[in-house]
């Protein structure tokens, strides 16, 4: 492919690409993100290709594998253009019928979305999950093949880059980003323009720009989906930032756990280089820029800016004290600007559509949209993009479709291990950087883990502390030792060994860790504990004082019991019990031997729903087994 040497050449190529594409030609798009691949999308693609050929539609129907659409719960997702007919949970066996339906201009009813009333919805944008979103950054994911730069060009890609290189000075670019008031999407919400300016003005050459794709926050995966599904948008943002900052070398630091993202971004870099959109003299502008991809190796703490930069140097990715910010002294002590994937992906949009457009979306202090990873105990799990300021209720109930199984909402966890748990009473709070901070949580990178009444907040707090204990690099004492002790206390509490004073002890420990830890990991580590104590103190007290787990989760505090009035002596639980703790036989009511029981919960899972004989108890004695002679089940005559 010939290098493009001018913005005119880029536009000409774009016209050629779009001219060669008929917008009315049917196109089958198949979501091929990691989640859909996990659901079998990889196996479906070749079946579709074969089916198109078999039904004699080769050349008449296109097939495109796109990035993640967001509705991962219902993947693999197939959307037929131009009508945008959306089929969910498509299996290889459905391909023939779908291809035929295109030929006959019909719908495959059974694969359409079914709403609460049972009505089918055919068009993707009309599905409630999508209808209530505003997909600005994420929207192109479903339209383009991430491995095709031509697809990205066809939707206007790299136009913003041409604009900055030929029509704007670096200062103007900087001003535009500042005016848009873009704030970092990775956690802290620091104003991006100001960060860029610091690096630009810092003494020392060369300067570096970095994409943080070390999305370690468990429960969050928007950066993975963006980098996998639209890598060029991230590259374009990065090159624009480099131009504004005066950098000629960039890095993309990707988690090793994201192999598909690594693969797709490497392909994108190669393609951009071939077109002359990367490398020396980009589009003939005289500006040169190269990008290296650096894989992480599984360390949460390495997502912290100074740690990440140390890792790029090839050393152990541990944080250092930031008396001098990394924007001034980062990789090899040179000025280094770090932003996460989503932040960079916003940049071409701001340049292309203008700061005023961007600033018109969102709230006073938080502009633009935010992608959230809506997961946990919610019906429609997946990625959702909404304007800043939308309420939690709208996200969880209107988009997410509420809590499965008619359960009650309990809390939503935002901000990952540094964030907090927000209880029901704040469901109408608008979601933006400042509002979430006011609720003692934080935006973080956008993980939103919904918890229902069956989730024990003490157990979740312990989960986070356990996670952080594992991930703490151990360099500073407050974090290393503080977490360890916190874990011990929490293990005692969930294990029924909690003592009066434990809660207060954790509060004291939290204060010290927050003030004395070296990096943000340690400083924010107590947050999951602090917010749960703040909002759910009664649950902690129930664990400590009554040895009771109100959510019936903590293994050591619960018991399984078979209700003799409901047991139909079907023997299923007895057969499945891994430790043979259930006695009884055919026609003899089953009883769990509490001594033998390991509380694995298998009996509860397998007891037929029509019997519901197995129950969980906590904080009360298990009823004594009924006498032997009464155990013989007398079935009612039908």
């Amino acid at each position, binding site marked *: 492919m010939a290098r493009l040497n001018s913005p005119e050449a880029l536009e000409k190529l774009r016209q050629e690409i779009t001219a060669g594409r008929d917008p009315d030609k049917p196109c089958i798009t198949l979501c091929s993100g990691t989640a859909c691949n*996990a659901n079998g999308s990889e196996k479906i693609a070749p079946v579709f290709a074969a089916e198109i050929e078999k039904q004699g539609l080769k050349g008449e129907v296109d097939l495109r594998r796109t990035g993640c659409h967001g509705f991962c719960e219902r993947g693999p997702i197939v959307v037929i253009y131009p009508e945008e007919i959306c089929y969910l949970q498509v299996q290889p066996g459905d391909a023939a019928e779908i291809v035929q339906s295109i030929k006959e201009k019909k719908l495959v009813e059974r694969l359409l979305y079914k709403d609460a009333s049972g009505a089918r919805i055919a068009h993707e944008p009309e599905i409630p999950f999508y209808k209530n979103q505003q997909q600005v950054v994420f929207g192109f994911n479903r339209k383009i093949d991430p491995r095709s730069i031509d697809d990205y060009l066809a939707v206007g890609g790299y136009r913003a880059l041409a604009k900055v290189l030929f029509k704007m000075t670096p200062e103007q670019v900087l001003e535009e980003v500042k005016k848009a008031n873009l704030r970092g999407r990775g956690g802290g919400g620091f104003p991006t323009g100001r960060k860029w300016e610091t690096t630009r003005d810092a003494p020392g050459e060369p300067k570096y720009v970095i994409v943080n794709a070390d999305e370690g926050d*468990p429960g*969050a*995966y928007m950066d993975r989906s963006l980098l996998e599904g639209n890598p060029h948008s991230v590259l374009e943002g990065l090159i624009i930032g480099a131009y504004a900052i005066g950098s000629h070398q960039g890095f993309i630091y990707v988690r090793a756990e994201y192999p598909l993202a690594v693969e797709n971004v490497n392909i994108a870099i190669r393609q951009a280089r071939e077109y002359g959109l990367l490398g020396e003299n980009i589009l003939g502008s005289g500006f040169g820029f190269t990008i290296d991809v650096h894989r992480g*190796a*599984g360390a949460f703490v390495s997502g912290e800016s100074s740690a990440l930069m140390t890792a790029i140097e090839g050393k152990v990715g*541990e944080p250092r004290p930031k008396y001098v910010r990394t924007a001034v002294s980062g990789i090899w002590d040179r000025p280094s600007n770090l932003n996460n994937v989503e932040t960079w992906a916003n940049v071409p949009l701001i340049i292309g559509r203008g700061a005023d457009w961007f600033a018109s979306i969102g709230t006073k202090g938080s502009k633009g949209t935010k992608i959230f*990873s809506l997961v946990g105990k919610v019906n429609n799990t997946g990625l959702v993009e909404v304007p800043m300021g939308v309420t939690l209720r709208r996200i969880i109930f209107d988009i997410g479709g509420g809590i499965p199984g008619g359960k009650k909402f309990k809390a939503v966890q935002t901000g990952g291990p540094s964030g907090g748990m927000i209880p029901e009473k704040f469901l109408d709070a608008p979601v933006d950087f400042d509002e979430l901070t006011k609720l003692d949580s934080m935006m973080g990178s956008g993980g939103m883990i919904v918890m229902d009444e069956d989730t024990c907040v003490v157990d979740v707090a312990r989960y986070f502390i356990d996670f952080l204990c594992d991930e703490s690099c151990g360099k500073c004492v407050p974090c290393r030792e503080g977490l360890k002790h916190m874990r011990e206390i929490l293990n005692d509490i969930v294990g029924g060994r909690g003592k009066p004073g434990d809660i207060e002890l954790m509060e004291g420990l939290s204060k010290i860790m927050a003030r004395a830890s070296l990096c943000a990991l340690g400083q924010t580590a107590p947050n999951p504990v602090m917010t749960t104590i703040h909002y759910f103190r009664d649950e902690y007290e129930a664990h400590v004082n009554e040895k009771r787990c109100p959510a019936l989760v903590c293994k050591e505090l619960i018991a399984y019991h078979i209700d003799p009035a409901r047991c139909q002596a079907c023997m299923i639980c007895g057969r499945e019990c891994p430790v043979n703790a259930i006695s009884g036989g055919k026609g003899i009511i089953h009883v769990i031997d509490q001594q033998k029981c390991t509380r694995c919960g298998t009996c509860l899972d397998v007891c037929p729903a029509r019997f519901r004989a197995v129950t969980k108890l906590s904080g009360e004695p298990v009823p004594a087994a009924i006498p032997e002679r009464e155990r013989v089940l007398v079935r009612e005559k039908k």
Partner: protein
Amino acid sequence: MATQLAKVNEIIDKYPARPSVLIQLLLDIQGQFNWISRETIQCVSDRLGVPVSQIYRVASFYKAMSLKPRGKHVVNVCLGTACHVRGANRLMSKMEDTLGIKPGETTEDKKFSLERVNCLGCCALGPVMLVDKDYHGKMTPARVEPILKDYK
């Protein structure tokens, strides 16, 4: 061993001989052999001019690297938050019982290694586990045994 070192040298040749490539190199070696041996570390040290102690420090710090031989198949059970609230712990317990090992260990027949991973980024499908390169979503303890049977 000679062939292994030849392969290691091949991997090293792909990179410029700079200390900054160390992590990338070790990841490739890990990917190739499923673990990083003492001899390999010595070889990398000689070629890059990085002390053995520093390489050990890097290799022991990161979760993606193993200093012990691992099994033919690596089972990664995700214990991310989304998977956790959907019962990943029970999945892990079942896996431990079935394989008879704890996370970080390898079965005696060297067939399986078990690892816990903090998030695979498939949160919508939780609980998730990854066996070699295959993702298995919406896992239940009951599906563990049938899935493992497919890995010979």
